[in-house]
């Protein structure tokens, strides 16, 4: 494949970032916004072209004769060559999941670019301060995310991984005059950086043993029978298989080196994808503008962790212990986040916890995927859910943005009964809720059903657990929906005009995403994405019993939400008073933030940092100060010698010279 189009996909957003970042302030607001949106639109077209070519052209580069999809390295440029083995390359890897991610990222990014043209201005049409900066950062993020998904090697992925973290930091802290936004951006950066420490160590351990960073070599080699599929020479794959055979042997604290490496890499994914216990940054990240939440903290960046595990999935298959850890972490996180989402007031927080929960679904799906059950259905389901979730969660966030923009508050208490005032937002939001709740025929139903099927294939317990989470999901989403759009008639505060639908730049993305959410479920996803490139038609194996159960659970949950929240009544209050402790814990997110504060402030700062600070201030600084004081004193003492009075110098010189002369004379005599 010609490298021009793929290269342009990366270059255009970067160029837009540089252009808007450097000259944005010289441009008018509409020009900057239009430029950014047009740049993203071009990228969208290019990415669609590339993905379409990859999936449908039938080129032998992309698809083998037996129908298996192949990994294809479009280009791979050496960037830093330190030693023979330690070579860092930048390249463009085209395979099913990267092509799928190209589509997802560019679609959502374009929608968000378009939407922000309307969102980032007030009711009088005045653009917000820093509008151009906002578009510059959006372009930077799009560039970084695209670079991440097409990475040919784990080091390139790590570089772009940090870049998306940095752009996320910049965008969360977009309202940098707001202290809460500043601390939220710092929190997000620090927590994900901490996780990336594990990621980096994992990369180093992994590549220390394999002598390579390349995904193609990682992923194809260890699994027998796949060498041909992934176009790797037998010699390489044999060599790497031998390396892993020895690498897996040494153990550290009861687990093999490979397990450690994989778990450490997963730790990076936990940070980015907000898995427990590193989830605390994501709810606070809602301090950023809502389009940013839709793009970064719902659809694209937070699924980078899932993408990472999917990328290295054949490696994880070698160590099922790591996959079990992923399953447990994902399952616990999913349940926790769903519980918390039931008790939040801020609608963006509800969506944030819902995102955590749904990403945990994807993680669980990867964790339970095994080749011996439905040909690795979980992998496909995870990617499918990633795709559908990106669409409907972006839709929900953008809808929430429209509500917030119209009402001027994040809390549903200020909304209530908006369905007549904002019909477009209402219908699209309802579609999003139906999709996430898993109602047929909306997209979430299919992906969630596949996830639950693969859970059942792994263990019944996980299946029941995840079904409960699915029920909770349906419940809290419809609780949110009813509290925003029903509950009671909307009361517009005095002095405000009634909320209304937003301009076309904001409603058009909602309608498009809603349409996608309606039909995306019918995409035969297994034909495009599977863990080994082999097409797998899930519909042929569709398990109607699982589907019926999940559908019934969802409908029941929705019915419960309808009873409780459709009309203003005392049921929720009674419910709350019946279980005050549970409600309080959920509302306070099970006190995770307080626990972190306790650990960092009381234990780390109080018990470790303070004594060190005292030592630094008094012993280290003190000794330095003492040295300076001695020098100062000595120089004060000898300063009068250098009086600057030539006469004194002459006297010293003369007496010295004469003494010398006298001594010489005496000696000569």
């Amino acid at each position: 494949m010609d490298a021009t189009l793929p290269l342009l996909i990366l270059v255009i957003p970067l160029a837009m970032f540089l252009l808007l970042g450097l000259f944005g302030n010289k441009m008018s607001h509409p020009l900057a916004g239009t430029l950014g949106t047009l740049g993203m639109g071009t990228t969208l077209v290019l990415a669609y072209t590339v993905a379409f070519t990859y999936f449908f052209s039938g080129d032998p580069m992309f698809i083998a004769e037996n129908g298996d999809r192949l990994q294809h390295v479009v280009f791979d440029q050496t960037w830093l060559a330190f030693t023979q083995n330690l070579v860092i390359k930048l390249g463009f890897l085209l395979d099913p999941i990267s092509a799928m991610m190209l589509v997802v990222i560019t679609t959502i990014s374009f929608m968000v670019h378009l939407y922000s043209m309307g969102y980032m201005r007030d009711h009088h049409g005045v653009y917000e301060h820093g509008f151009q900066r906002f578009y510059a950062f959006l372009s930077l993020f799009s560039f970084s995310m695209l670079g991440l998904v097409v990475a040919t090697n784990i080091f390139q992925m790590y570089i772009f991984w940090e870049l998306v973290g940095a752009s996320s930091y910049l965008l969360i802290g977009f309202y940098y005059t707001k202290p809460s936004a500043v601390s939220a951006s710092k929190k997000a950066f620090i927590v994900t950086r901490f996780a990336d420490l594990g990621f980096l160590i994992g990369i180093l351990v992994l590549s220390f043993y394999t002598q390579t960073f390349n995904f193609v070599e990682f992923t194809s080699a260890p699994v027998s029978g796949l060498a041909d599929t992934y176009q790797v020479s037998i010699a390489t794959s044999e060599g790497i298989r031998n390396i892993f055979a020895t690498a897996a042997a040494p153990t550290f604290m009861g687990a093999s080196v490979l397990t450690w490496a994989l778990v450490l890499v997963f730790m990076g994914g936990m940070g980015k994808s907000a898995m427990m216990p590193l989830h605390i940054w994501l709810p606070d990240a809602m301090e950023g503008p809502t389009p940013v939440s839709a793009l970064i903290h719902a659809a694209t960046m937070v699924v980078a962790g899932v993408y990472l595990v999917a990328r290295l999935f054949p490696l994880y298959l070698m160590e099922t212990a790591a996959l079990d850890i992923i399953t447990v972490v994902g399952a616990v996180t999913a349940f926790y986040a769903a519980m918390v989402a039931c008790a939040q007031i801020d609608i963006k927080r509800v969506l944030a916890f819902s995102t955590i929960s749904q990403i945990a679904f994807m993680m669980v799906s990867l964790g339970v995927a095994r080749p011996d059950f439905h040909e690795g259905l979980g992998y496909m389901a995870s990617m499918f859910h990633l795709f559908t979730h990106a669409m409907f969660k972006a839709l929900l966030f953008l809808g929430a943005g429209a509500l917030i923009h119209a009402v001027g508050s994040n809390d549903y208490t200020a909304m209530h009964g908006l369905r007549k005032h904002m019909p477009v937002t209402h219908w699209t939001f309802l579609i999003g809720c139906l999709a996430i709740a898993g109602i047929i025929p909306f997209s979430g139903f299919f992906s969630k059903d596949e996830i639950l099927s693969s859970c059942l294939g792994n263990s019944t317990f996980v299946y029941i657990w995840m079904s409960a989470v699915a029920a909770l999901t349906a419940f809290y989403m419809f609780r949110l929906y009813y509290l925003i759009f029903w509950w009671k008639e909307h009361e517009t505060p005095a002095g405000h005009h009634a909320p209304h639908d937003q301009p076309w730049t904001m409603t058009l993305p909602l309608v498009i995403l809603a349409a996608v959410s309606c039909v995306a479920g019918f995409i035969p996803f297994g034909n495009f994405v599977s863990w080994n490139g082999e097409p797998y038609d899930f519909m042929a194996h569709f398990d109607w019993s699982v589907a019926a159960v999940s559908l019934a659970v969802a409908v029941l949950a929705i019915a419960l939400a309808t009873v409780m929240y459709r009309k203003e009544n005392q049921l929720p209050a009674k419910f709350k008073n019946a279980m005050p402790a549970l409600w309080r814990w959920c509302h306070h997110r099970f006190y995770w933030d307080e626990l972190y504060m306790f650990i960092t402030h009381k234990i780390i700062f109080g018990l470790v940092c303070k004594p060190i600070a005292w030592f630094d201030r008094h012993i280290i600084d003190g000794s330095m100060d003492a040295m300076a004081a001695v020098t100062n004193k000595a120089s004060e003492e000898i300063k009068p010698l250098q009086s600057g009075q030539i006469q004194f110098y002459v006297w010293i010189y003369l007496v010295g010279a004469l003494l010398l002369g006298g001594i010489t004379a005496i000696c000569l005599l």
Partner: protein
Amino acid sequence: MESVGSIIIYVILALALVVFSIMAVTTRKILRAATYLLFTLFAAAGIYFQLDYEFLGAVQIAVYAGGIVVLFVFSILLTSKPGDNSEALSSKSRLTGLIAALAMLLVTGAALLSRCELFAARPEMQNPDMHLLGSVLMGTGEGQYLLPFEAVSVLLLACIIGGVVIARRR
């Protein structure tokens, strides 16, 4: 053997040299110090005359006594009011000065007195006439001084410019 007249003149010149130079550095009135310097310079000029360097003596009187001392007097009048006395020297600073001066005198004097060739009689010498001086000053051969002469002219020019630049009122 010198004539009595020249001995008397020598004694007067030597005494004037010693006495006026000492008075120049010990008097507390600065204008008087300049005057004693003038006398000292005259005495030195007298010594040049007595040693048969009439041209040098004339230059000494013209440049030193006529030029430099006048400069001194002008600057003194510019910088001090009539009747100003410099403060009395402290005994400590006088002592340091004396130590340096006397040590200098002792060491150098001892060195001078230990050289017997300095006790030889004055040899005969043709008085250098203006013709000779002119040709030496303007010549470029060995023992001739055109280059230093030109260098001094440049130096004096630089000195004029420098004096104007430094002393002018800004």
